[in-house]
């Protein structure tokens, strides 16, 4: 393999990994606080992409406006989702909330089929994002650099919010002990809603970039990225934001590089993540950055 080719694979992996990481953050934050796998998270990604698509085509919004609207819309949707489908089940067995999440996921997908039809739609890529540039011998699209760049900025902003602001500290406190935090006078439901808003906004951002990178959208586009990002979150150690990003990047590299070096395995690409999941859960269920929790006897 030539260096150029390798660099191209490298940047592809970086892009895919960043997207996984960005989606994984939403899973890890919600799981860290509610111990709930938000199955519908991948569908928020899909809706974010559709919002931008319809914003720019149907309502002729300029790109930046459409993106902001889509992200805000998705954040709102995340909050609504929590309020309608998850909040009533806070005291119920955890699996009930999970079934509820599965139902929400199917609801959003089938609603998207009804509203947007099930046909895949091509996405128009702005010219300046896809005109080939050459860096160090590798031929790249600016998009390939944009995605990791945007991801880095978003993650930095998020880390600032979580570690240096009051709501962020409240989030951390809730993930340690929800009842105690409630008794300390933190309005837990608001913080949880904020968590959903942030997670969904990030999912929408990654959905938009996903649609630009792989220029096609359909109602089920969020399903596989969602599953895989969740696996990345588990791999990184569920509950840890840094872990989610690292997990996402590693998963992106595994997928791209395995296929790059062993092209005959390309048919099995979708299985890699799940194999990784089984291995991680068996070897180190707490993931790279996770903390151990034990049941008291």
């Amino acid at each position, binding site marked *: 393999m030539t260096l150029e080719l390798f660099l191209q694979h490298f940047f592809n992996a970086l892009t895919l990994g960043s997207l996984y990481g960005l989606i994984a953050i939403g899973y890890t934050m919600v799981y860290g606080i509610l*111990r*709930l*796998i938000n199955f519908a998270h991948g569908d928020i990604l899909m809706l974010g992409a559709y919002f931008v698509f319809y914003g720019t085509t149907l309502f002729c919004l300029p790109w930046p406006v459409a993106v902001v609207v889509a992200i805000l819309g998705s954040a709102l949707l995340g909050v609504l989702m929590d309020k309608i*489908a998850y909040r*009533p*089940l806070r005291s*119920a067995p*955890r*699996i*009930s909330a*999970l*079934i*509820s999440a*599965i*139902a*929400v996921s*199917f*609801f959003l*997908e*089938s*609603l998207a*089929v*009804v509203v947007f*039809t*099930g046909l895949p739609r091509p996405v128009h890529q702005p010219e300046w994002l896809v005109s080939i540039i050459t860096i160090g011998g590798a031929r790249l699209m600016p998009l390939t650099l944009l995605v990791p760049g945007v991801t880095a900025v978003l993650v930095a902003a998020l880390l600032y919010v979580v570690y240096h602001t009051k709501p962020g500290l409240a989030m951390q406190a809730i993930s340690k002990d929800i009842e105690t935090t409630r008794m300390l006078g933190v309005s837990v439901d608001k913080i949880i809603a904020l968590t959903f808003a942030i997670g969904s906004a990030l999912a929408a951002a990654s959905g938009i970039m996903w649609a630009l990178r792989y220029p096609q959208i359909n109602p089920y586009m969020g*399903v596989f990225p969602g*599953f895989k990002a*969740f*696996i990345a979150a*588990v791999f990184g150690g569920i509950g840890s934001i840094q872990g989610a990003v690292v997990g996402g990047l590693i998963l992106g590299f595994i997928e791209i590089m395995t296929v790059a070096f062993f092209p005959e395995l390309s*048919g*099995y690409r*979708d*299985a890699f*993540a*799940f*194999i990784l*999941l*089984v291995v991680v*859960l*068996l070897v180190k*269920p707490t993931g790279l950055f996770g903390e151990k929790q034990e*049941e008291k*006897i």
Partner: protein
Amino acid sequence: MNAKPAFNKRDAALTALALAVLYLFLWWADGSMAGALSWSFLPSPLNGYEIQILNLVAVYGILAISLNIIYGFTGMFSLGHAGFMAIGAYVSALCVLSPEQKEIMWIIDEILPPLAALHTPFWFSVILGGVVATIFALFIGIPVLRLGGDYLGIATLGFSEIIRVLIVNATPITNGSLGIKGIPCYTDLFTSFTWLIIVIFCTVRLLNSNFGNVLKAVRDDEIAAQVMGINVFHAKLFSFCLGAFLAGAGGALLGNLLTTIDPKMFTFLLTYNILMIVVAGGLGSITGSIIGSVIITVLLEWLRVVEEPLDLGFIHIPGIPGMRMVVFSVCLLIIILYRREGIMGMREITWNSIGRWFSSLGQSKEDKA
């Protein structure tokens, strides 16, 4: 919950009577049988489509029971059902197709020689489908059943996706994404309901015995179960494999009912449908699973109405494709939000409970009089 001493003459008689009525109904409903012994004075009003729904009720009943054993009775949240069903369906299809059919159908890659020659009776193919699914369940279960709750769900879901990827890629065995067509339609009303009844009979016997209590103990409190000398891992593996066996057999029946199978059929959506039946019927209730499969299957078909154009003469409502699943997910949401225990909860309908119900009915009438 009502584990009465095993054999009671009245119950046995009532069960036999109910079975006789059921089979009489099936005989009448199945138009193809009418030719032999004419029911011309009471022709079956059911068309092929309605018979198909009845068949689906029976097959979904088996599948719901199998998931209920794993999730409702043993408390393992498994989302891998579509995988086991796919295995069963493919194994059965490979068994019942004639060597000539297989030779014509495999066009991407030639079919593996030993599989090409394989040709077995239908009943055997169903059992073999279950057995192969069980073998897979053993291999997947030994590593992942140590995981709890939602992690197990994700791992089994991953497993079922891996199965699908394997089916797409293993063209010499599965014919890849083209799928298998022209499977003989062996699953008629008698076959499907007979399998359902055998499955109900065996599972009820097992679950009403102390083995059933042991599974429920594992579901309720693993730590206490260990202290009671229960090998929790064995119990879980047993339940997982039993569920996988029934899922494989159910998948085989489904394949022979639909006559066409391909990897796209066995997505998470299929698992979701089964999960929905189990949750709606009641986790930990076999009668609930049966009731659930009747209601959900009929509802799923009936909801096709909303997808078809509606012409009321003066107003024309165009059909909305996909609306069915929207209504459906809202239904599941409502169940899980407002009636989490489903229709039956953990209760069962037994002859005793029916008897009590009738006597209470009689009493309340007497009270009024």
